[in-house]
């Protein structure tokens, strides 16, 4: 690892987080309105004026510049990196580098997506002569569930992972959602319920799949020195990583292995200088139940093939040894389409001790491990209350 990477550890902090005022099914609000609500709430949380924002980060076609225009900000640093739902975690890395280099002083990362109601959403269709539309869609690749099912089936074949183990993730996550008043799905859930829900794309059942909602989220960062003068305790950026390996799932080199996440997590741990045993709280992107299982393997919390056993016995549930996805996750809290910003918001709140009934006692170091595309990309953040 280069000395430059290590130098960035603890130089920048997250100082504000916020969701949109409302989350769920919001046909009365556009995607940009959700950006604006979240930005306003995150800046209020940070105690930072809009006029101080000089770096704007978002993901989506034109989204960073369009958001800046909508919010009336003229940033001197603009980043529209789009690598799927983990883009906002990658933006933390980019913001940390930009702030440390003096390219901006206050970074605002925003997300707003009308994933369910599709109000004011940019187009998402692939061109008719794109690789996707020539070599995948003609065979019935029908969005993310079908792509993730190809990986889940191979993981089951290679390692004996079971449907019950996949369901453990959904059930543990629902238990956390029951402790979060903002979570959309809060009814009790059992492994049998998951297995009895209708098949979407074998081996994935309906309750192995995330929600589709309308919501926004935003995060504010600034230099650690400045952060210490702001109202809320700083959450330091200790380690980051990102990687992209493909877009089209047919190009996935190994269907039972999330290689981008191995790269991003390895770098984040090396940069942070912390061990896996030091992690108190974890946010593992859960678009589908197979994703955290393969993510835990990729990030080195267990060996390849052992992710199913790792989550068994409700290990990640409230009271379990490995508190994960404590907001209720994409499976039960909210999932707009690009969920990554919400992992950051929850990690910061846990590290500040703001989480009430779902608070992980004494959480000092958290990991956010995000997913892009169809196991296409990954971004990792390790954040902490102190600089170890």
């Amino acid at each position: 690892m280069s000395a430059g990477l290590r130098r960035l550890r603890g130089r920048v902090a997250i100082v504000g987080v916020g969701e949109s005022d409302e989350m769920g099914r919001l046909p009365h609000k556009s995607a940009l309105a959700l950006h604006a609500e979240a930005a306003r709430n995150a800046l209020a949380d940070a105690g930072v004026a809009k006029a101080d924002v000089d770096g704007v980060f978002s993901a989506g076609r034109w989204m960073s510049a369009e958001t800046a225009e909508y919010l009336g900000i003229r940033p001197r640093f603009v980043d529209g990196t789009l690598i799927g739902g983990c883009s906002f975690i990658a933006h933390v890395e980019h913001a940390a580098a930009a702030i440390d280099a003096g390219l901006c002083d206050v970074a605002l990362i925003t997300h707003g997506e009308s994933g369910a109601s599709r109000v004011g959403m940019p187009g998402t269709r692939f061109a008719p002569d794109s690789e996707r539309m020539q070599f995948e869609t003609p065979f019935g690749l029908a969005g993310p569930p079908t792509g993730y099912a190809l990986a889940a089936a191979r993981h089951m074949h290679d390692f004996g992972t079971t449907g019950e183990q996949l369901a453990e993730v959904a059930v543990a996550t629902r238990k956390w959602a029951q402790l979060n008043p903002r979570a959309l799905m809060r009814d009790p859930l059992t492994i049998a319920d998951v297995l009895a829900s209708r098949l979407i794309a074998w081996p994935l059942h309906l309750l192995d799949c995330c929600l589709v909602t309308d919501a926004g989220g935003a995060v504010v960062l600034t230099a650690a020195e400045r952060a210490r003068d702001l109202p809320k305790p700083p959450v330091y950026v200790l380690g980051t990583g990102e990687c992209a390996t493909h877009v089209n799932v047919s190009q996935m080199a190994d269907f039972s292995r999330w290689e981008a996440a191995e790269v991003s997590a390895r770098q984040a741990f090396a940069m942070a200088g912390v061990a896996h045993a030091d992690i108190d709280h974890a946010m593992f992107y859960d678009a589908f139940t197979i994703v955290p299982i393969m993510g835990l393997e990729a990030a080195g919390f267990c060996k390849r093939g052992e992710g199913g056993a790792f989550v068994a016995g409700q290990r990640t549930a409230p009271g379990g040894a490995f508190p994960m996805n404590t907001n209720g996750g994409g499976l039960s809290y909210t999932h707009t389409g690009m969920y990554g910003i919400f992992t950051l918001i929850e990690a910061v709140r846990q590290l500040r001790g703001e989480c009430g009934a779902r608070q992980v006692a004494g959480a000092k170091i958290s990991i956010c491990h995000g997913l892009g595309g169809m196991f296409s990309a990954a971004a990792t953040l390790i954040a902490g209350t102190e600089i170890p």
Partner: protein
Amino acid sequence: MPPYSGVIPVPTPETRPFWEAARRHQLVLPRCRACGRLHYHPRAACPFCLAGDLEWQPVSGRGRLHTFTVVHRGLPNFPLGVPYVLAIVELDEGPRMMTNLVGVEPDPARLRIGMRVEVTFADVSEEIALPHFRPAEEGR
């Protein structure tokens, strides 16, 4: 030919020879003259060494089922109807293709990762035939 309700590929200049061969029910892949490797989907540059000197090589059309899903909630009006088998096939020559497995019950209990498969072409328009795969005898 009745109108086809699925997505019909629109070739680019780089992929047109693949689709022209498929129309003749022949499976051809680009092979890099610099490093010798085959790749799929077809590109203008070899994804291994970035060389642009490529030739089209006929391949056997035989391989093994690498992974699959049985899709119950699929594309609207997809011609195979639900449930259908979306598959990744690894050709004997190495590259993998996304395809449909046809000529089988779309039942995970009757499908086996590693089973032998062979190409069969589905004519979907005057210009385009899609390379599907069907079960083949072991040893083929």
